[in-house]
């Protein structure tokens, strides 16, 4: 079996599993119709059918049991109650696991499988209905026709076959001649046609069957083989097969032939029978007739009706996106050069350049749209995570999703899977209180985890909210102090305490259960989101629950930024975090502590952070006469003024990963290429503020070697 076929199979499985889980979601809402159940059945059925081709026995067997149950639901002999729903939902999970195991060739058997097999078998066996259907295994032999034949390697036997086709035999596309040809493969045949029932030509019904045949077949043939030839026409003809000579070795059997009919002259070969059957048979059935000319010159033409979707290798789209990014940069380069050459702004050339920009943007949007994908499949996966987490913790939790149709870049969808999984598990594991505590607080059961997606002013916002007990800030703070992440006498705001969750080293074995798992803490979630150019914030209310909000740029490729200069370097600040820019007057500054500076703005005091300092790009004094301050809002909601040396531009930039060839850099989220072809780094303002505040202590800067495994960083 070739690999491309396998790849097709697994890609198809992915689609089918998605269809399965969509269908199950509808069913679980209690709003299913026959077509939904049909679609679910078909998904499992198709997986089973194709899996068989690859001899994926575990998968086929499990799918078969699953399908049997679904078939009962489809036919209305099994009602979907809560228990049935639970079993089929868990079965869909196991099916997905089996597909994954098959793909990775791990041979792993999902833990839950054995239990489910039993449940499915129980459900599959109709108590009232004839249980025979379930027992019907994968046999190819026709049932009614299968006298058990022991194929004794006997010598030549002689069979008499009497064959009278019914009209339906022809209607089903059969040709007696072809059956005889098949018999001829078994042994020597003599065929005799009986035309005695043929009416006069004027009374002849072309569709009726008037002919019958007797065949003498000889050879070392088991009777079963003969019946097999006729297996497709069972019920469409009168057929008798008689063994007339047991076949004593070397005995000449010729006698029998003459005995049966002495008048036969031309029936011994295929050619004569071909023509008479059935008298004026429809032209279509005659092989090699005139209709052949009507065939298109290229019979192997592609599928006449192409599917509504197009499968494209994602790499091709990525390449296209990259090239379009280059095109946009190229536009910027040309524009800059044209301006530098002194051509007036209102010239035709500038107008043409503007058209160029529009076209490039249009192409970009179009290409981006190819990769746009609803978050639905991602959310559906989370339903499973909630189920598993709820089962493992013994909590009663439902997942409510909103905005499933929200479209985001495919790459985003993929890269969000891990962080979202972690957040959802966390919500069930840590967010939702145990049932007794909920009951005591008078809160409803089941508990709810709400997953929502929405577009908000050029961003995608994804929220994971639970209606649990909210963050235990006291415990969070104690943990952070115990781990030396904050000093014991630190005075932290509620938002600051909440954000301690995102500190590297906050999550430990004692707080990360096996469930929340994989030893990944919220800090890794945060890092991943940041590397995607997004932000992660938390809001929590005691007794009411917590909301984690991920805000992401619509695409990975473009960011609205402000181009600033820091010393000799040019950098980009994401516009999303910028509140305003301030040109301070000397009186606006107020020193605090040995090195700190505060900016007084509209009666409030905002800490000033020198961007160049933090990033180690030489020493910078905050010079009231030269510095420009960019006021940013951090993820905790507080404001910080970043001091830079100049602001040159505000524009969209194409995001280029630094991690691809280098590694993640603290304080920097990515890079971009400016109009002059130079690289500018894109600043991660929150990381810069965190670095400046020294709470938490910075991770050792000496640890700035190349990453051997980039994925380790993305978690």
């Amino acid at each position, binding site marked *: 079996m070739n690999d491309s076929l396998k790849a097709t199979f697994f890609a198809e499985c992915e689609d089918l599993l998605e269809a399965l889980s969509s269908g199950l979601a509808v069913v679980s809402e209690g709003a299913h119709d026959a077509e939904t159940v049909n679609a679910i059945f078909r998904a499992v059925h198709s997986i089973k059918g194709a899996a068989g081709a690859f001899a994926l026995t575990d998968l086929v067997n499990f799918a078969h049991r699953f399908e049997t149950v679904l078939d009962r639901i489809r036919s209305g002999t099994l009602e979907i109650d809560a228990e049935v729903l639970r079993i089929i939902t868990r079965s869909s999970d196991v099916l997905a696991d089996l597909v994954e195991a098959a793909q990775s060739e791990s041979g792993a058997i999902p833990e839950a499988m054995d239990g489910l097999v039993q449940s499915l078998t129980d459900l599959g066996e109709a108590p009232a209905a004839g249980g025979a259907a379930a027992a019907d295994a994968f046999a190819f032999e026709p049932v009614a026709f299968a006298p058990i034949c022991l194929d004794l390697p006997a010598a030549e036997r002689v069979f008499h076959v009497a064959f009278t086709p019914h009209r339906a035999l022809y209607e089903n596309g059969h040709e007696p001649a072809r059956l005889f040809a098949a018999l001829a493969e078994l042994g020597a045949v003599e065929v005799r046609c009986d035309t005695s029932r043929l009416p006069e030509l004027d009374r002849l019904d072309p569709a009726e069957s008037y002919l019958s045949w007797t065949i003498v077949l000889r050879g070392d043939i088991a009777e079963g083989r003969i019946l097999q030839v006729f297996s497709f026409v069972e019920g469409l003809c009168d057929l008798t097969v008689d063994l007339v000579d047991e076949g004593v070795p070397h005995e000449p059997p010729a006698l029998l032939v003459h005995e049966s009919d002495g008048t036969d002259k031309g029936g011994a070969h295929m050619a004569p029978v071909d023509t008479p059957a059935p008298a004026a048979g429809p032209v279509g059935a005659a092989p090699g007739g005139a209709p052949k000319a009507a065939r298109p010159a290229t019979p192997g033409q592609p599928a006449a009706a192409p599917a509504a979707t197009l499968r494209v290798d994602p790499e091709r789209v990525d390449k296209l996106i990259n090239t379009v990014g280059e095109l946009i940069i190229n536009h910027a380069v040309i524009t800059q050069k044209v301006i530098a050459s002194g051509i007036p702004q209102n010239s035709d050339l500038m107008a043409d350049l503007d058209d160029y920009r529009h076209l490039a943007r249009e192409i970009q949007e179009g290409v981006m749209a190819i990769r746009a994908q609803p978050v639905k499949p991602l959310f559906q996966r989370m339903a499973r995570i909630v189920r598993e987490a709820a089962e493992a913790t013994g909590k009663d939790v439902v997942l409510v999703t909103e905005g499933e149709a929200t479209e985001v870049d495919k790459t985003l969808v993929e890269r969000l899977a891990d962080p979202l999984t972690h957040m959802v598990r966390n919500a069930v594991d840590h967010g939702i209180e145990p049932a007794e505590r909920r009951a005591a607080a008078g809160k409803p059961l089941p508990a709810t985890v709400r997953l929502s997606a929405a577009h908000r002013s050029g961003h995608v916002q994804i929220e994971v909210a639970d209606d649990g007990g909210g963050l235990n800030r006291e415990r969070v703070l104690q943990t952070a102090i115990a781990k030396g992440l904050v000093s014991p006498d630190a005075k932290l705001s509620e938002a600051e305490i909440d954000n301690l969750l995102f500190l590297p080293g906050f999550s430990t074995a004692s707080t990360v259960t096996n469930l929340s798992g994989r030893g990944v803490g919220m800090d890794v979630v945060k890092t991943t989101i940041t590397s995607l150019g997004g932000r992660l914030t938390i809001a929590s209310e005691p007794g009411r629950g917590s909301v984690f909000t991920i805000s992401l740029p619509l695409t990975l490729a473009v960011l609205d930024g402000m181009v600033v200069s820091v010393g000799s370097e040019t950098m980009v600040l994401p516009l999303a975090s910028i509140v305003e820019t301030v040109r301070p007057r000397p009186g606006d500054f107020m020193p605090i502590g040995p090195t700190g500076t505060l900016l007084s703005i509209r009666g409030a005091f905002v800490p000033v952070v020198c961007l160049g300092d933090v990033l*180690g*790009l030489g020493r910078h004094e905050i010079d009231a006469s030269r510095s420009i301050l960019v006021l940013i809002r951090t993820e905790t909601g507080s404001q910080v003024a970043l001091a830079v040396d100049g602001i040159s531009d505000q524009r969209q930039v194409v995001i280029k990963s630094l991690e691809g060839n280098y590694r993640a850099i*603290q304080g920097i989220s990515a890079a971009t290429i400016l109009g002059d072809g130079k690289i500018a780094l894109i600043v991660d303002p929150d990381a810069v503020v965190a670095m400046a505040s020294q709470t938490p202590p910075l991770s050792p800067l000496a640890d700035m070697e190349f990453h051997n495994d980039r994925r380790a960083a993305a978690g």
Partner: protein
Amino acid sequence: MTDVQPQDDAGATEFVSLVAGKQSFCIKITEIREIRRWTPVTSLPHAEHAVLGVMNLRGTVIPIMDLAAKLGLGSIEPSTRHVIVVVAVQGRTIGLLVESVSEILTVTNDMVRETPAVRREDATRCIRGLVEVEGDLSRILDLGALLGGEREEAA
């Protein structure tokens, strides 16, 4: 891992020889993507000493390393006389700043001598063999060890 794999039927491998820190090195030609003149780079915050910054290679951001500094042979003050050898190693593209690139060597396995184990330091650890060229020794660079090896060992 440290073998010099034959690249063609004759069991010979082609190397590009270059000079960094006044020593001669060579890199397997199949590991080299291109060779270009030095152009100014964008500095990276808190980068290790040998990392000079990043450069735009036709739309891709690649880090540029001072090979001499990386090997502990003192650093190069880059100028347009210097050359960047763009290499691909472990799926990443990296530029190496060197003093000059001299020639292409065809090396057969029997020409390669093992590196005498003198001291465990970068300069020798990243060298997987020596090859004699016209009376001069050129060091065969093990890019995997040079650019990714530390992590692997530490892990």
